[in-house]
Every structure is written in C-alpha cells, then in structure tokens.
C-alpha cells in the first residue's frame, strides 16, 4: 500500500520534471510553431511552409535553397510600396521565417524540432506549455490531491496511534507505581489498590495482576479497563481515506438504494487481552476474534476502545 502510493508520487514528480527540463530554445520552438500555425493554418509545419514535401527528410542544402526562395518573396524590402499594415505583417512574417531558417539549419535545434514534430507539440496553457496528456485536468487534479491527502492522513493516523499507545502505557505505569508505593512490582498480599487523582477527581483501580481500571462515576461506578493494546497501532486499508472516502460516497449513493453497499466494519483483535471467560486457562493469551469494543473518545481527542460488553461484565 505504501509502496503503491510512493509509485504514484514518483510518477507525478517525473511528469513535472520532464516539463521543467524544456530549454529556452524549446520554448522558442513552441511559440514559433504556434505563431506560424495561427498565421497560416493548423496543417503547416516549418517544412511545409518552406515547401519541403519530404519534411524532416530534407537535406540542409534543400532547406537553405527553400528558405532563400521564400525569403525572396517575403522579405520586407519587397513591401516598401505597400500600406503600413501590410508592411508590418510582412516584417513579422519574415521575422518568423528567419527564425525557422535558423532552427532548421542548426543541427541540434532541428533535432529538437523534428522530435516535437514526431512526438507532438505541447499546448500553451496559461503561462506555460504542457503536454495535453500530462496536463492535470479537473479529475486528475482531484485525484492527485486525493492521493496526497490520503497518504498524509494514513501516515498521520499511524503516528497518532503509536503516540496514543505509548501515552496510555506511560499513564498506566504511572498509576501502577503510585498505587504500589513507587514500585512496579505487585504487592505480595495480592490485593487490588484504589487510587484517586485529586486534581481531576478520577479514581483508578489497580488489580494485582497489573491491569488498571478507571472508575466510571457517571455510570454506577463501573470499572473500565485501560489497556494500551486496545489501540491498533497498525491501521489497515479500511481505515485509510483511500478506502473510506470512495466507500462513503458509494454507500451514500449507489449503496443506499441497492444491496451493493460495502461493509465498512473494522475488525481489530486485542491480542494481549486476558480472557476471563475461560477460567481454566485464564492467563493464556488466545487468538480469538472478539467483537469490536465500544469506541470512547476522551475529552483530549484520544480514542480508546472499550472491551466488548461480554468481557467487561465478567470481571
């Protein structure tokens, strides 16, 4: 998944680089090509203007001959007796002709022109030239933005999850060490300890096996376990925007009226969970698919997942 997004990035970047690599000479060729087509017609190339039917196969000698022949009729000296407007037009046209002559008679410039003539010219858009196929249209722009946002979101999501995991683990250790009198070793008497934070008024219960619970005073003093492993530090594809956005759009349009709606349920199993409902094997960590617990959003924005109801009731 990450590799794929990188590939998309690389492709987009390369497309921009190839655009930026055009030299000033290339831009001159583009602009000259546009002007000639505007003046004479779309079907004209530098070669056909000079009357060279063989196109890029023409020899330099043939080009020179054709260029001179055309100069003889187009040179502004031949328009001295014409109106001012005609003279101006003749001058501009000859200016273009002499540039065409320069390009076609210069080996490297001609190579560039022949290349563009063969592969197609980029089109002028706004302030620069872009190839039509590389030019990001509306859809392409939305797509690129989607990829970029999706990637950032996914990276951010992963980092957030890891930080949350660490923070909860730290908090647990802190509560534990306070409850156990500065030690991280459970007291020998096997008792559970109760601890109240005077600043927030929150009460924690630390069980002898090291698990930490918060007392939910709003809810009949129910105990809610704090377990960092409830956080999935490796979010899957279904949690990324690459999946969520299209599926959200799908489910709210087509999926809403047909039976084709996509299942967005995210399944996560806490592999460190102690399973109490199996008394004969209560310390063993098992791989068991559990229902996803309640999602609780803490006031500071953290998201923790509660244990599934069944598990909680068994404590």
């Amino acid at each position, binding site marked *: 998944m990450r590799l794929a997004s990188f590939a998309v990035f690389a492709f987009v970047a390369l497309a921009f680089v190839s655009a930026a690599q055009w030299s000033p000479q290339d831009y001159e060729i583009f602009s000259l090509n546009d002007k000639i087509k505007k003046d004479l017609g779309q079907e004209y190339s530098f070669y056909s203007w000079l009357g060279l039917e063989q196109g890029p196969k023409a020899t330099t000698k043939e080009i020179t001959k054709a260029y001179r022949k055309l*100069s003889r009729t187009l040179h502004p000296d031949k328009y*001295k007796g014409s109106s001012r407007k005609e003279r101006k037009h003749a001058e*501009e046209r000859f200016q273009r002709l002499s540039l065409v002559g320069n390009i076609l008679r210069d080996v490297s410039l001609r190579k560039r022109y022949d290349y563009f003539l063969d592969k197609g010219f980029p089109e002028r858009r706004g302030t620069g030239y872009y190839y039509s196929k590389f030019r990001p249209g509306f859809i392409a722009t939305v797509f690129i933005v989607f990829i970029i946002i999706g990637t950032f979101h996914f990276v951010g999501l992963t980092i957030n999850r890891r930080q949350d995991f660490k923070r909860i683990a730290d908090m647990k250790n802190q509560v534990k060490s306070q409850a156990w009198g500065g030690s991280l070793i459970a007291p020998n008497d096997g008792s559970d300890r109760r601890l109240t934070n005077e600043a927030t008024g929150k009460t924690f219960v630390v069980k002898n096996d090291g698990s930490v619970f918060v007392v939910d005073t709003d809810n009949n003093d129910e105990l809610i376990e704090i377990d960092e492993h409830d956080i999935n530090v490796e979010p899957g594809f279904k949690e990324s925007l690459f999946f969520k956005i299209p599926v959200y759009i799908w489910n709210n349009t087509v999926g809403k009226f047909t039976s084709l709606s996509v299942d967005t349920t995210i399944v996560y199993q806490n592999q460190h969970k102690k399973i109490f409902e199996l008394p004969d094997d209560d310390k063993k960590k098992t791989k068991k698919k559990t229902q996803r617990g309640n999602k609780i959003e803490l006031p500071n924005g953290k998201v923790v997942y509660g244990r599934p109801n069944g598990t909680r009731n068994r404590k």
Partner: protein
Amino acid sequence: MLRAILKTRATITPSKTKASRSLHPSVIGIDLGTTNSAVAIVEGGEARILENDEGGRTTPSIVSFTRHGENDDVLVGLAARRQAAINPENTFFATKRLIGRKFEDEEVQRDLANVPYKIFSHSNGDAWLSTTFGRKMSPSEISALILKKMKEVAESNLPNDKLPVKHAVVTVPAYFNDAQRSATKNSGKLVGLDVLRVVNEPTAAALAYGIDKKQKDGIVAVFDLGGGTFDISILDIEDGVFEVRATNGNTHLGGEDFDILLLNYILDTFKKENNGLDISNDRQAVQRIREAAEKAKIELSHIKETEINIPFITKDKHINIKLTEDELDEMTLHLINKTLDPVKRCLRDAELKIKDIDEVILVGGMTRMPKIRKVVEELFNKKPSTAVNPDEAVALGAAIQGAVLSGQIRDVVLLDVTPLSLGIETYGGIFSPLIPRNSAVPVKKEQIFSTAVDNQTGVEIRVYQGERSLVKDNKLIGNFKLANIPAGPKGSPQIAVNFEIDADGIINVSATDRTPYPEDSEYYNKPNSVSIQVAGETGLSEEEVKKIIEESAKNKERDAELRKYYEHASRADIICTDTENAVLQFGKFMESSEKESINNKVEAIRVKINDIRENTTLHDPALLNKEVTEMQEECLSAIRKVSIKQQEEQTKK
C-alpha cells in the same frame, strides 16, 4: 522554366514599377566613408557613380567652418580639405570614428591626442565637437552636412524630373552598434533626407559584385579596410539572394591609424634630426605633415620608394625623409595583423573553412596597399578578386539596395545579419544574450518578465550589445523602465517584452503586460498600459534634432537663393562659350570693330560670372540676363551680316 520567369517579369514589372516609383522617385546610394564619400544611382538597371562639381568620383568627408560676423561659412569636401592646413582647428575629418560614441570611450580618448580639432563631452556623455569660435555640434551633424553635400552632388547630375532627391540608402560599417547606426540614420533626418535603409558596407560591396552575374554564385568573403573601420563579411550568393553568413570587424581600425603612425614617425625623425626640436604642438605643421603622410602612404602602394618633402615646416626648417615600402610595411605590420582575428572569428561563426570561400573581394582604399593584399592572399590561400573598384563598390551597392527598395530591381534580396549579440543584464551584472550575433534581421524575440517582490509596480531592464560576458564590457543600448504594473504577489505579473532588430540593425524594445489590473486598482478596466521609458538614451535629443532641422530649413532658403544665382551664371557661361565659338568660326568674316565689341561683352560677362561663383558680388540675374541677351543679339546680327555677305559673294560669282 527560365522563360516562364522572364515572361512573368516582363508582364509584371512595368505596372508594379510605376506604382513604386511614385513612392520613391529616385533613391540614391551614399557611401558615407570615414575619409571619402561617394554617391551612386541606378538607372536602367545599372548602377553608376555620380561625380561632384570638380569631377571627382569620391568627395572627401571633411567639413570646415569659418566665422564671418554672424554667419558661419561651411565648406564640405575638397574645398574644406584645401583650407585644412590654414584652419586645422575648425576642419573636421574622420568624425565617423566618433559617431554614436561616448566621450569616455577608449577609442575617443585615443583620438583626442591625434586630431587638431576639439572633442568634448556633451551633457549626455556623448563625444561632441567644438570650433574655436564656440560652435558646438555632434558628429551626426558633420555627417549630416556630408550627406547634404552628396545629395547636392546627386541632384546636379540628375534631370529635373527626378528632383528633388528625397530618399537615400546610406552605408555603415557592418560592425557598427545600435547607437552608431541610429546616429547615422539621424544625420539624414537633420538635412531632410529620408534614409530608407542603413546597409552594411561589405554587404553593399557584395551586392555591387554579385548583381546580375549568375556565374558568381558561391561563397564570398568581403575584406573591407577603409579609412576608419575594418569589416569582414562572409556572404552566400545564390540566384539573386545575398545571404550574409557572418560578419565581424573593428570599428576603430583603418587608414587613419596608418596615417597617425606615419605622422608620428615623421615627427620623431624630424625631432631626432633637429636636436630635439618638437613641432607636435604646432597644429598647422602637424596638419601639413598629416597630408604628406597620407600622400606618401598612397604613393607607396604604387612605387617602392618615396620622399616626404615639406619645405619650411617651421621657420627655416624643412622635412625631407625617404621612405620605402618595406619600411612602411614593417611599421604598420601590427595594424595589419589586427585584421586576422576578426577574419578567423567570422569564419568560425559562419561554420566555414578557408577552402569553402570561393572568392575574396577587397573593399576600401587601404586594400590597395600591396602588403595588405599579400596578407589577405596568404590568409585565404587565394588571389583576391579585382572585379570591383575598392572606392566605389560600396556606393554602387547602396544604390542597388535603393533600387531594390523602390522596386526598380525585383529579383534581388539582401538577407543581412546583426553583427553583435543583444542581451539584458541579469543578476550580478551578467550579460545574458537574447538575440545572438549573426542572426538574420529583421528579427524579434519575446521575453517574459515578472516581479521579484510583492506589489512591485516597476521593472527595469537594461539592454546591452556586445560579446563579453559581463555587461560592463558591453555597450549599453538603453535603460527601459516598465511602469504601472498591476500590484500583485511576486512573480504573478506576466510582462512580455519584445526585443526587435529591424533591417537597419536598429533596436526597438516594446512591452505588453498580459495580466489585467485587479478590481481595486485605479487602472481597473482600463486598457493595460505598462509603459516603457527609455532612460540614458544616446544621441541627439528630440529638441536638438528639431533645432537643427529648423536651422537647416533657414539655410535652405539661402541655399535656394544662391542656387538661383549659380544657375543664371551657368546659363550665361554656356552662352558665352557658344558666342566665343561663333566668333572663332566666323570671326574672319566679321568687321574687326564688331568682333572687338562682342569679345569685350563676353569678357565683361565672364567677370560677373566669376564674381557670382566666388561669392564676392552677387550680380542681379535680370541685369546679367539683359547683358547676355544683348551680346547674343549683337553676335547673331554680326553672323547674319556675314551670311548675307557670303551669299552676295556667291551670287557675284
């Protein structure tokens, strides 16, 4: 195929030519040289040189001033040259070397010590000239006076239906920059001559060489070493198309430098022979030596050894120096060698080898020097062509180009190039070229400019011409300011600036902004008017031009009046000659009293003609005409008597 072309030409030419001719009745070609100028015109498809009053095919490019009360007497050409020795400080020669230059230019500073007249710095930094009585003028004005003289030479040669001459093609050294070209073109404006085109001297010479000669198609090198400048151009001539491949040169290398060298040699020799007597501050003496030096230099092109004889150069001292051709060659070798580099660069720019050159043409008086011919021959491994006259080819070519512009000559076209790269200053004083040298003109390049900081409303563009990589080594053409740019974030305005070099090699810069003004701008909804201002412009200001034109118009009336007197004098002169011839033929049959009376009248009229021509007394044309008529009648009656007498004698027999 050929026939078809001829046929179409035959049908098209008359009507088209007629239309064009009405536009430019006659376009003269002027070779405005450093030391000599020439004028030519195309008639009946052939170019010919027009001779001046003295019968010279070239006219010295010398202008002198003398003050008489309120008015200045201006002499141009041979007359100015003749009085140079007695009026050296007010006789201006070789001013083409100063045109379009700054006083601070190295070349101008070098000339300061070598010329007898005063050069000073005008308020805009240009090199200007001043007479001893305080008349100040730009080198353009001197050129204008020479152009005017050449125009008069042309007019005196042309039939009345072609007068007045209004249009000209003027030549300049190929390696002239924009300022020098503009200044030359301006000169024409000062004397009411419309300079249709400024054409490069070597290109013009090639035109004169290759016109209507199909067998001369090929690659031609023109080696042009004139009085003040050196140019080398390589052209490809094919079927009436003259395409310049490359050009190079040195605008401060020519016969003048040879003269100065020889002048200093003579001064040094004189000093040595006369116990350290230094006469280099005696301007009259220096002027005499300068003339002798030039004469000796020219002589040594034809003979092996010459003597420089100037009696009484100062008090009782004389100059008498023997000089051989070999000595001159050795002395000037370093100058001759200065031509080699430009030739090599030109070949390289044209992407040609020496063996590709089919023909070498020599232009300019200095190419008559045998040593230079030898060097050129060795350089190109080929004997130079003698097909063109080195003094006249340029003017003939200019006339041909004039005929091309007027439509008289239709199957010829000149594809010339710009000799110097045009570019702008970029960050750190770096010169970044936009139009490389040897690009065919006219040419136009567009460059997009933007702003460097937010809400910037002006951009300054400094345009330079030259080949060096730092702008400070190149010639500043202009300082263009773009104003009224709509305020916006940096980089957002898109200002397209067009850099254009026209067929004269003169630069134009124009700007258009592509961004519309924002709604809150005071310019909103107004047509976008990014303006371009030229600061630090060189040459004459509009005001100065206006003043000079006004003065010239004032003189024009006086000139026209004088012309009237001259015309009557000329008419009287012709009738006098006729009368004298008649007296010679029939005199022996006339009564001696009659004969004497007629001869006396002729004499009296001749005196008056001389008075008019020498400007001493302007006799009333009506009186003069009356006298002439009387003389004519007397002569006719005498002849009638003679014929009656003869008839009587015949009947007697």
